[in-house]
């Protein structure tokens, strides 16, 4: 995967570049808004990581210009401003996701991975399945190995989010944002508690666990690997 990182702070930029390179991605770094725009206009990339405050041209303007010229690559905004209004502004300008500094590298990686795959999942499918677990998004039902499982609304939403991103890590923050619409950290074990309830219904009665925890990062769902 090819990632363009537009970030004027050299330390952060190098930190992201190293981390992504270790994961086997090819990374291009630019340190100026205008360079970011020029590079993305003439080169293709899978994800653009765009700092909102940059010399030359701010991130919002870069995103708007790219969208105006028909570029559809996913854009992840980095910002030190975590306010609702800023978030909305970023998404309106053509951003696909939003990450507030400081962040865990694993959080950035998880989001980039999800973003890079987004176009394939865009085709609306009403059924999701992993191994012997099936989810009917229209009927709001879950079955595993033929057994119907009763899920609460939030549990269903968590499971749907995990299954849409099967094989990829979904972080705690992503769950809070997308399942609960929380733009703040509730300082409690909301995610952990609901996740353990979900696991008790989905995994516990069966032999093979499907939901996996990545320590300090998040959760993923995938079929057992041979």
């Amino acid at each position, binding site marked *: 995967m090819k990632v363009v990182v537009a970030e004027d702070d050299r330390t952060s930029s190098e930190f992201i570049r190293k981390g992504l390179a270790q994961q086997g991605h090819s990374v291009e770094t630019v340190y100026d808004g205008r360079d970011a725009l020029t590079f993305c206009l003439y080169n293709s990339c899978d994800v653009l990581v765009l700092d909102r405050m940059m010399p030359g041209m701010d991130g919002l303007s870069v995103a708007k210009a790219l969208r105006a010229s028909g570029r559809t690559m996913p854009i992840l905004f980095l910002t030190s401003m*975590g306010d*609702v209004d800023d978030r909305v502004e970023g998404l309106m300008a053509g951003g696909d996701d939003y990450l507030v500094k400081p962040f865990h590298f694993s959080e950035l990686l998880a989001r980039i991975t999800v973003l890079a795959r987004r176009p394939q999942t865009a085709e609306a499918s009403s059924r999701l399945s992993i191994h012997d677990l099936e989810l009917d998004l229209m009927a709001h039902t879950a079955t595993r190995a033929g057994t119907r499982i009763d899920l609460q609304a*939030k549990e269903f939403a968590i499971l749907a989010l995990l299954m849409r991103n099967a094989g990829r890590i979904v972080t705690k923050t992503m769950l809070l944002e997308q399942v*609960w619409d*929380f733009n703040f*950290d509730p300082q*409690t074990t*909301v995610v952990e*508690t609901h996740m353990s309830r979900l696991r008790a219904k989905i995994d516990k009665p069966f032999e093979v666990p499907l939901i996996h925890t990545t320590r300090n990062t998040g959760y993923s769902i995938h079929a057992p690997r041979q």
Partner: protein
Amino acid sequence: MHRVSSILAGAAFRSAVLLLLLFLAVFLVAGVVIVSQTSSEAESEIRALVSNEFELFREAAETGDMNQLRQLVDSSAAAAGPRFFVVALYRPDGTLFAGDDIPRPEKLGWSTITSGVNTKTPTEKYLALTEDIGGYRVTFGRTLFFVEVGSAALWRALMLASIVVGIGALAIGYLASHGVSAKLDRMAETLERVARGDSRVRLPVGRSNDQVDRVSRQMNAHLDRLSDLLDTMRNTVISIAHDLKSPLSRAYILLQEAEEAPGEAEQTQLLEEAQAEIERLNGIFDTVLRISRIEASDDQSGFAAFSARELVSETLQTFEPVVEEARQELIEAPLSGDATIVGDRRMVVQLLVNLITNASRYSPPGARIELSAGVEDQHPVLIVADNGPGIPAERRTEVFEPFRRLNPERDERGAGLGLALVQAIATRHRASVRLEDNQPGLRVIVRFPVSDLGAAA
């Protein structure tokens, strides 16, 4: 000197001068009208008198004997002492036949003539009628002296009146301006002291309740708010410094320990702990920023109507298992009626979550937390009540201050920002937060304003 010039520059004095000028202009026009009216009336009086005298001359000439006319003119002119008329009779060839030796008027009818001043005719200007009677020209005129004296006297009276009014107006303007100027000077002095950093001084407010006093009162209210803010800010800065220093120094120690840790597992453990401390620090920063942003803005454009009861049952679904894990109970206690809140739903959710978290954190295991939405005097309300230790009545206001914890030594987890954020969100929604005794425990009532939008929805 500066004092006088500042008084003269005062609004009261300026408007007095302006009014005075306007008054004088009107007075001048009125004076001209009055004087010309009076003198024209006096003149027509004189004309009537002159016409009457002329009747006598015509009657005398009726017989055709010009000597009779001559005798009449002579006897008139011969009257003893100074007189207030001139009379002359000229022969057809233009030479003087009888009466005063004045230049023969060329025109017939009314004219103003000037005679030489002598003992007989002490004044200069006369209003005269000239007519030809039987070929002889007769001129008879009466003095305009009294008209001129009358006009002059009128003018003098008017001038005197304007001067008195003018001085009066300037004096009143000066005094009024002096009063205002003194108040304004005190105001400037006070504000200068505030600018120099003394936030406790206030403007003097007089008893007259004039505009300046009203402005002073308003400015005092602003100064009150300002010094409150300054005090809060000072406390907040000190608290932030204190509260940020502790996790910072803990992280610092953990990092040093990690550097010297013998095993890799130990090192990882210490590094993770240090990271957690830094995250805590970041969390405090985020919350402080969030509070200040919510407080700074008064933007309600993103507000929408939503059901309070739906919000409560959704939040209950999310937090019931979390509270259960702390071996406490979270239940919904329905109030009468469903209410519609107009606001930023996410913010109100955070408010509710903070209240639940607080209730759970400060209550012992086995406690019961009740969540409810309803209507109180037509106002939408959200209520979070617990049967925990509660807050003593006298300390209920201070818990809203940032970084305030009732038992800082016992309570390591919270940064003391939860209720400050609740207060900020409530204020943004023009809602009030009330803390009450739940007997036992704490009962928090958030009361939203009655909204037209809410009623329509």
